[in-house]
């Protein structure tokens, strides 16, 4: 019940801002594809494939991450610290756990919407990919991980600036380092160990292997699911136990 309530709220939010949401989801990926796909990567190949084939799954992974995180984290941050409408969620009888799952689903659907836009956008760039239902499920799962992280960041942030700082220190490094723009085989081992643990690395790897026509690595699927679960449990604990929400 609470999950449907949040999905309805997310739909209202989307209807109100669909044009802004759509255009802002396209700008960065479009620039990445022009600069790195057509520009720097025009004559580059990765594992004997055109660089654009390597690049697009990475861009889809980082876009679903960014969109899902922002759709939940930034929105909740405004609702909590500016509108104070988040107070109303705490006061209401809707269980917090259902509210969080609703946010995760709503955020990940927004992420998947952006991912689908990138798929369409990649067609004129000549990217060739095998798209299966599992490809969309991984986009959804990746979105759920970062939407849950968005809830957690939003309830921990003491100011509006904190959520921007969180993006700068957590989301931005993952955008560039997690198997998105370049293969990780030349990265020093000490750094690679850290990168290999991060969720976006698994999302990029999964989407790319499926785009190349290979079977998905189930360990990566499991790791993403575990991340989603841990962030969800943490967000639930913080909201329920925090003395001053």
């Amino acid at each position, binding site marked *: 019940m609470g999950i449907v309530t949040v999905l309805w709220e997310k739909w209202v939010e989307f209807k109100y801002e669909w044009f802004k949401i759509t255009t802002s989801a396209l700008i960065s990926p479009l620039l990445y594809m022009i600069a790195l796909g057509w520009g720097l990567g025009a004559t580059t190949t990765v594992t004997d494939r055109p660089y654009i084939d390597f690049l697009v799954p990475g861009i889809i992974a980082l876009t679903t991450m960014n969109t899902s995180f922002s759709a939940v984290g930034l929105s909740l941050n405004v609702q909590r610290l500016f509108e104070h409408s988040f107070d*109303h969620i705490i006061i209401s009888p809707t269980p917090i756990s259902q509210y969080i799952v609703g946010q995760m689903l709503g955020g990940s659907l927004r992420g998947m919407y952006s991912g689908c836009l990138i798929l369409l956008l990649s067609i004129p760039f000549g990217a060739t990919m095998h798209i299966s239902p599992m490809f969309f499920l991984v986009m959804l799962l990746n979105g759920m991980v970062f939407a849950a992280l968005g809830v957690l960041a939003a309830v921990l942030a003491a100011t509006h600036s904190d959520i921007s700082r969180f993006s700068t220190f957590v989301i931005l490094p993952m955008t560039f380092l997690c198997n998105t723009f370049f293969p990780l085989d030349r990265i020093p081992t000490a750094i690679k160990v850290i990168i290999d643990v991060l969720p976006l690395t698994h999302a990029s790897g999964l989407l790319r292997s499926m785009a190349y026509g290979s079977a998905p690595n189930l360990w990566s699927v499991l790791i993403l699911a575990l991340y989603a679960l841990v962030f969800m449990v943490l967000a639930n604990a913080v909201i329920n136990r925090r003395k001053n929400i």
Partner: protein
Amino acid sequence: MIDIIHVSKTYPKQQVKAVDDVSLHIDSGEFFGLLGPNGAGKTTLIRILVTLLLPTSGEVQINNQVLTRKRADLKKKLSIITQENSLRYDMTLDQVMEWQARLYHIPLAVMRERREELLDFCGLTEHRKKTVRKLSGGMKRKLMLCRALLTDPEILILDEPTIGLDPASRRQMWDLLRRLNEKGLTVLMTTHYIEEAQSLCQRVALINKGKVVRLDTPAELISQLGPVAVDEFDGSQTRSSFFPTKEEALAYAESITNKFNMRSTTLEDVFLDIVGSGLEVV
């Protein structure tokens, strides 16, 4: 109905005890007021009552059951108008009401019926398709009231409900609150408008520095101070003196040389007397 039992709240960073061992009982169907100067702890207490804040010690009970963030059954009995307009700015009035109904698990058909009545009563029907960000401050307060009443609560908590309302709208809200209270709704209200509390509340608790310093009916509080007041102006400031009878007040007035005015004591006098002195806790 509502029991606040030895509730204290300390903000650790500021080392401030905002609420200090407050215990109150509010009966079912009572209209109860919390009065106090800025920073007295009224809003902190209200936020504890609706689980937005968790107390450092003590507990709140509704119908003898401890209220926590997980008690959906108890939270369903409460509705609140917070001091801030806690509304989604990008929702229309209709959507705000639907959002409320969904959060409180009210069937949409019931919601539509009540929504019509409430928006009509508050004169907001013609604005229903506007987003909240386009409403005036007064309209937002009215919408908060509509939203709070949509869930048909047993307890209505109002934190400065008439802030931003013009005098006519304020009176309109007083009448509505009175009618709702007469139908059995329990109302707990904080307000800066003392005449509002005097007019509406059956009992008031006066809070200062986090503690309850007086708790009684407005009439009894006025009686304790003295129901007849004499204001005298000494050329630089007005000083008020209070007397149990008109005769004693007249005798005093005849003994002074300054200009004076004799009148009935109000709850505001009680409030000012408490704020201006370091009274002991009851």
